[in-house]
């Protein structure tokens, strides 16, 4: 029995080796078909600064904490906090440097100046990741060639009043966006991503039925408006607590008579969840029954730390995988499942990982599937976007709209993703060669056997 198993493995490995070679060559194309000089420069500086962050992890943490508190500070208090977070706390900045900077600022009374300077720098930085501060300014923007999925940013909605305000902003956005022609390439169709907990506060896992009822009531007008204008709607996935409610609502709403025929609804599946395979299967069956496809945005997931901490607090088995590798393996598995589920499920892949991108392109091509999307965050991995676009792939940008400073919490999350220890960009910044960066996440297992 062992031999049979072993034999299978060898065959399996050979096929995989072939696949991996192909995937590597695609990755090289994405990576080398570089866009403008500016994009190359930005990419270079980002990876350098990330590398810097990793040489000084305490400093990085303090900078993040500082940016996190920044929106709550009056301008004149910015420098004092900068001092507390970066000079008074233990960081890798040498003491002589700390004290000479402080001395200079104190001697020349530069506190105020430094404060407003810091604010300016952070705002400039935020603009890289936040599209604009209000839907009203959308028109002013140099309309980019890329299709988008818009997202409204802000503080947590803690009251129905605040939730209504978010809802109003989403409606405003829908009103302002131009109507989308019926026969447009689905990849170009304007889309909106909705964070359900932003527009409805009464979401309680222990009262799923009622929560679902409230959320459906809130969502219906948005869906109607979107349908009228031919805009796609995607329900974002948030923390695990809310998954059940959001999925239930999506399933029930999209089957309601007025929405049943609409082809441009979507939802998210997070590969870091142990349940993601099961979730995808459920969606496939659902879409078959509905008879109209659903778009599934496959992502790895953005609440990893939060989920682990919550699970530990409650004594639960963590709903997310423990290692990045397991998530990567699951992601690839899910990619294949999604591609095989076309046309019932319309795949939309959200990733900035070169291996994942090349993996998707290779297998989509193998299956001759054309109707799938690649989605990336606004302001991130522009070099890859250019590379993919030069290959004829259309990239949809997930584009946050919201005030720059309150949007900072969002920014922090993006930064954390970028600089997480196992993050792709970090690995890259270490100067590893491309081949080692895009190894098959499964490989270690096979080598282990």
């Amino acid at each position, binding site marked *: 029995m062992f031999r049979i198993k072993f034999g299978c493995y060898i065959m399996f490995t050979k096929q995989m080796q072939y696949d991996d070679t192909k995937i590597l060559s695609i990755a090289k194309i994405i990576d080398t078909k570089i866009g403008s000089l500016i994009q190359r420069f930005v990419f270079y500086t980002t990876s350098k600064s990330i590398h810097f962050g990793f040489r000084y992890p305490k400093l990085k943490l303090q900078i993040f904490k500082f940016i996190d508190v920044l929106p709550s500070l009056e301008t004149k208090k910015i420098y004092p906090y900068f001092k507390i977070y970066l000079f008074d706390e233990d960081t890798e900045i040498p003491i002589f440097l700390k004290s000479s900077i402080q001395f200079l600022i104190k001697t020349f009374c530069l506190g105020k100046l430094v404060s407003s300077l810091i604010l300016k720098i952070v705002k400039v930085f935020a603009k890289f990741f936040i599209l604009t501060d209000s839907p009203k300014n959308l028109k002013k923007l140099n309309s980019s060639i890329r299709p988008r999925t818009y997202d409204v940013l802000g503080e947590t909605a803690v009251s*129905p009043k605040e939730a209504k305000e978010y809802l109003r902003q989403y409606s405003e956005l829908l009103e302002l966006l131009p109507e989308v022609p019926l026969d447009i390439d689905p990849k170009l169709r304007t889309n909106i991503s909705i964070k359900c907990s932003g527009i409805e506060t009464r979401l309680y896992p222990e009262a799923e039925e009622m929560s679902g009822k409230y959320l459906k009531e809130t969502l219906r007008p948005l869906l109607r408006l979107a349908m009228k204008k031919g805009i796609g709607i995607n329900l974002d996935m948030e923390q695990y607590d809310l998954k059940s409610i959001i999925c239930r609502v999506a399933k029930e709403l999209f089957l309601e008579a007025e929405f049943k025929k609409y082809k441009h609804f979507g939802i998210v599946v997070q590969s870091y969840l142990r349940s993601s395979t099961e979730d995808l299967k459920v969606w496939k069956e659902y879409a078959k029954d509905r008879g109209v496809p659903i778009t599934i945005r496959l992502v790895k997931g953005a609440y990893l730390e939060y989920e682990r901490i919550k699970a530990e607090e*409650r004594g639960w088995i963590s709903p997310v995988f423990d290692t990045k590798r397991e998530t990567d393996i699951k992601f690839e598995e899910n990619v294949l499942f999604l591609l095989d589920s076309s046309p019932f499920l319309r795949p939309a892949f959200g990733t900035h990982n070169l291996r994942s991108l090349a993996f998707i392109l290779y297998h989509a091509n193998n299956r001759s599937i054309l109707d799938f999307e690649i989605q990336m965050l606004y302001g991130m991995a522009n070099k890859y976007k250019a590379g993919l676009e030069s290959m004829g792939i259309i990239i949809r940008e997930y584009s946050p709209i919201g005030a720059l400073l309150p949007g900072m919490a969002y920014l922090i999350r993006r930064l954390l993703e970028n600089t997480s220890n196992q993050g792709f960009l970090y690995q890259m910044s270490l100067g590893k060669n491309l081949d080692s960066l895009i190894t098959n996440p499964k490989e270690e297992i096979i080598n282990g056997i």
Partner: protein
Amino acid sequence: MEFKNETIRDFSINTERTTLHSVLNSIKDLIPFQIPISTGKLEKFSPNPFIHKNPWSPESIVSKVSLANAKDLEETIQTSKEEGNHWKHLSQDKRSQILNLVADTLVSKKDFIIAVCIWETGKHIMEAEIEFAEAVDFCRYYAMVSKNQLADKHINLLGEDNSYYYQPKGIIGSISPWNFPMAIFTGMCAGPLVTGNIVLAKPAEETSATAYEITKCFWEAGVPKGVLHFLPGLGSEIGEAIVTHPEVSVINFTGSRDVGLSILRKTALVPHGQRIIKKVICELGGKNAMIVDADADLDVAIQSILSSAFGFQGQKCSALSRLFVHNDCYDRLKERLIAAMDGLLIGSPLDFENRIGPVIHEESYLRLSNLQKENERFLIGRTSSVPNTGFYIPPSLYEPPIDSSMWTSEIFGPLLSIQKIFSFSEGIVYANDSDYALTCGVISRNPKHIAQAKLEIEAGNLYINRGITGAVVNRQPFGGGKLSGTGAKAGGPDYIHLFVEGKTYTENTMRQGFSRDTLQ
């Protein structure tokens, strides 16, 4: 032995909800519960029971509680003399093992006990779930720490054996409150029992049915009825009798400050014929504060305030009632908080989406309604939609002057007072200006202020950047100082020491010309 906290269930799983729903609904057919007295050998019912009504639909009676009296107490003490010695002489391992069994038995009846508790108290399902886990934790945690900490300690010299060992205090009167009828009742019995004492459990009248279900779990797991006695009844009657009985050595009390202080006064007198100096452990009230700093994350602040001030309708001694907010964010916080309060759903706890349920009984309802009327001119925000029937008090926010009694007296309801401060230090001065020192919260992102708070704030439990209720066994041993109590720190490593007495024996092992060691 490693201790692991009992898990909180994931109610996003459909079956978890539906099972609990059906158990909750089944209570309708079982009420009114008839609650007996257990004096060790027999169970009996008294005439003229105490009637406890359902808090959200007062037309129905949840329980009819027998009222124990001094005669019943005398009976229990007699039975204890017969059975107590056996219990006391069991090994610590054995008693710890039985307490772990109690935990397992509780878990096996989880849904039913939680359901009874919700029907008696009007508690939200999640509050009940967390409280239940705490009850189980108490059993397992005290079982573990007493095994680890109460072993004999020997210091043997050449010709002298010394031993330091622990003996149970004897008979413990555990008088518990209605607000945590699962956790506090269980903890107040588990601590003294696992260390070898006799316990006279006197639950609150309002929650005797819950307490009785729990007591049955203790018995079922192997704690003899002659060791754990169940004496429901009135504080003025059976409570008083327990406190003054000459053979009760420890009064373990959780409840109001007035009652606690009167117990201390009464037990200070040693009447003729009483051969013990009584020890009193008391966990009294709180008038807990939270300081919101200029740089606070308001999302965190508001979520913490809502759960701390209005969770279980503010009927927790750890509940937030004094809020000090920095000028820089005062207006913004106030506006967002009032809007958030208005979004709270009020209604029967049988509908899980409701965040706020009724208060415990009519008396509380009338007292709180009066307080609301008296302070109406300071009212700045209130949850607007309230059901017509049931003892519902809408969460309310007041801006009373600093000399108002709203700032000093414990309210035990969902009424919160807010005050502007101009510096963090001013907040600390206000927070400390209280008879109580139970819990306190700080919402700040200034590391200097957080360090200052740790040093200067007078509270048994200080919470930073989170809510101030929901202490977890082992992680946050619970209890305060000043007039909040004797600092018993329930769920902490010192608690079991309150029920034992250190003793020593010394034996001279020299014989003429040789010692133990010279023979080897």
